[in-house]
């Protein structure tokens, strides 16, 4: 059985962990107090987060401290400054932020306030997907408690620093998890991603400097400030420090959200934590980090779960949400389920994505219903290659094409088996 130091989910195991009383007794807001009382400057806080090597947990793995440092200098740029916390968790397989919002909202608030201090923000918006009613209500209740206790609003904890955190509800569109789509949506528009540049740090919400961070990224911040960047680097790997929340779903005995250090082998998660493949079956395929990451075959299960190792294996770490397919599962069917999803979620701005996702769905659908044509596997490949990389405003097109290409690469014979042979086709 795997044993390792944990910190992200410790409080969540306490009864009523979402209340201020329980959270405070467990040390909540201690890191914020430390920042204020040790007279760290905002730049010191950014430096500490940079030093920790924390990488964003929303999918791209971009260094959080570096992202923060992109915010313009406050002396030469007096515009209003914002952060949007991305809680529009919609990547299939991913359900970790839901646990954090629901079970430990005060830790997220503390992380937001430290980030706000570090980047000299005027306000923070937490964009929660519309379906997450309980997590939204828990966060709102926690904000109300924090405000009543002098932890939110004007002169936080007597420090002289003031900041507002607002909740905002989305309405079911996956594309609003893309940072510029999120900003458009927060402004009350369709969630159409914006071309970059300009990047959010120079032109974000309402044209003002903005940073967009994932819930789990911000959740790590109080621990880094409380225990130090050096402590953080004792967990995980050199290039991907810290722990992460691995949501493992699909064909395992014990699906769940597990806290593990980056660099742990995928096999240890599947076999030790999740109890192995269900029903005594064997593994066929696995997605390392959500539906947008390329599927990998069973013989690659010893891959360490960190950004560099999963990339070297030909896929992406993504959100760290593993989806497991047993020997009876059809990779082609999973490709159809995902193609249908991306077709449904394409915002329609770019033709490669709008048309490409629909064609992918139609071709896989006809293959599965016995209507596949000779050359369809090549057609899927060519079409996918026309959708990636970097051909569109945002990465949804890539997210649709990359798993299709990976599925064909590793399971080509399964796709080919869907095409009637020439003799059958002639009958």
């Amino acid at each position, binding site marked *: 059985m795997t044993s390792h130091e944990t910190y992200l989910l410790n409080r969540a195991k306490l009864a009523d962990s979402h209340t201020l009383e329980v959270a405070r007794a467990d040390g909540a807001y201690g890191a914020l107090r430390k920042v204020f009382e040790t007279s760290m400057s905002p730049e010191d806080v950014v430096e500490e987060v940079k030093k920790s090597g924390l990488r964003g947990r929303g999918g791209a793995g971009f260094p959080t401290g570096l992202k923060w440092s992109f915010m313009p200098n406050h002396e030469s740029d007096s515009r209003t400054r914002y952060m949007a916390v991305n809680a529009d968790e919609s990547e299939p397989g*991913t359900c970790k932020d839901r646990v954090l919002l629901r079970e430990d909202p005060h830790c997220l608030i503390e992380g937001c306030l430290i980030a706000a201090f570090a980047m000299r923000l005027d306000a923070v918006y937490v964009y929660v997907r519309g379906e997450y*009613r309980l997590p939204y209500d828990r966060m709102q209740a926690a904000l109300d408690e924090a405000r009543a206790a002098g932890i939110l609003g004007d002169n936080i904890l007597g420090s002289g620093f003031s900041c507002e955190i607002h909740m905002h*509800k989305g*309405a079911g569109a996956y594309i609003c998890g893309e940072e510029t789509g999120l900003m458009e949506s927060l402004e*009350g528009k*369709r969630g159409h991603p914006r071309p970059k540049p300009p990047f959010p740090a120079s032109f974000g919400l*309402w044209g003002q400097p903005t940073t967009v961070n994932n819930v789990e990224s911000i959740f790590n911040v109080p621990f880094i400030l409380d225990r130090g960047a050096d402590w953080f680097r004792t967990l995980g790997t050199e290039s991907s420090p810290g722990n992460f929340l691995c949501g493992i779903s699909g064909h395992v005995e014990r699906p769940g959200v597990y806290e593990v250090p980056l660099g742990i082998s995928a096999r240890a998660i599947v076999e030790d934590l999740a109890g192995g493949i269900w029903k005594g079956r064997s593994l066929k395929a696995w997605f390392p980090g959500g539906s947008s990451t390329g599927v990998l075959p069973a013989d690659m299960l010893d891959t360490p779960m960190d950004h560099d190792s999963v990339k070297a294996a030909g896929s992406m770490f993504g959100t760290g949400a593993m989806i497991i397919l047993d020997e009876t599962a059809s990779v082609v069917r999973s490709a159809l*389920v995902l193609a249908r*999803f991306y077709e449904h979620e394409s915002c329609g701005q770019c033709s490669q994505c709008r048309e490409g996702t629909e064609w992918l769905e139609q071709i896989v659908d006809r293959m599965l219903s016995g209507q596949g044509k000779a050359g369809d596997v090549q057609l899927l490949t060519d079409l996918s290659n026309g959708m990636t990389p970097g051909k569109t405003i945002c990465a949804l097109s890539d997210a649709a094409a990359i798993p299709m290409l990976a599925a064909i690469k590793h399971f080509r014979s399964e796709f080919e088996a869907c095409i009637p042979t020439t003799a059958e086709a002639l009958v």
Partner: protein
Amino acid sequence: MALTAALKAEFDELCKKYPERRAGLIPALHRCQEELGGWISPETITDCAEYFKLEPVEVYSVASFYPMFFLSPVGQHVVSVCRNISCDLRGAGEIINAAKEHTGAACGESSEDGHFYLEQVECQGACTNAPMMVVDGKYHEDLEPADVARILGETR
């Protein structure tokens, strides 16, 4: 005017969160759908346009972009069954069949008596507790096909 005084007062408060009033539009549409018959009617669109100082077509373009908003009337109880990968791998197909059988509705339609509206939806973010469905906003997870009739029966 479909917007009640109470809703308008609520929106006045809501819009204070943002530097621009329009940012309150999507949360406001949620409240309209909850309070004004379970869907976004043409009248709601006109009224929201007036409130937010937008053209009705701008409100329509936003409402029509987001899957959670209904632009035509739906049954009294909304049943949303997830069809994405984690649920599909653990038997979402049987859940949707059980839901069809109990409600008598096809996907994307309301039952004849108007009691249920049934839909298949994309990932709801409960993947480690698949398969799942949402009934009137409440999550029901780790489902067996036999659970469906019991859960839907509780709406009667």
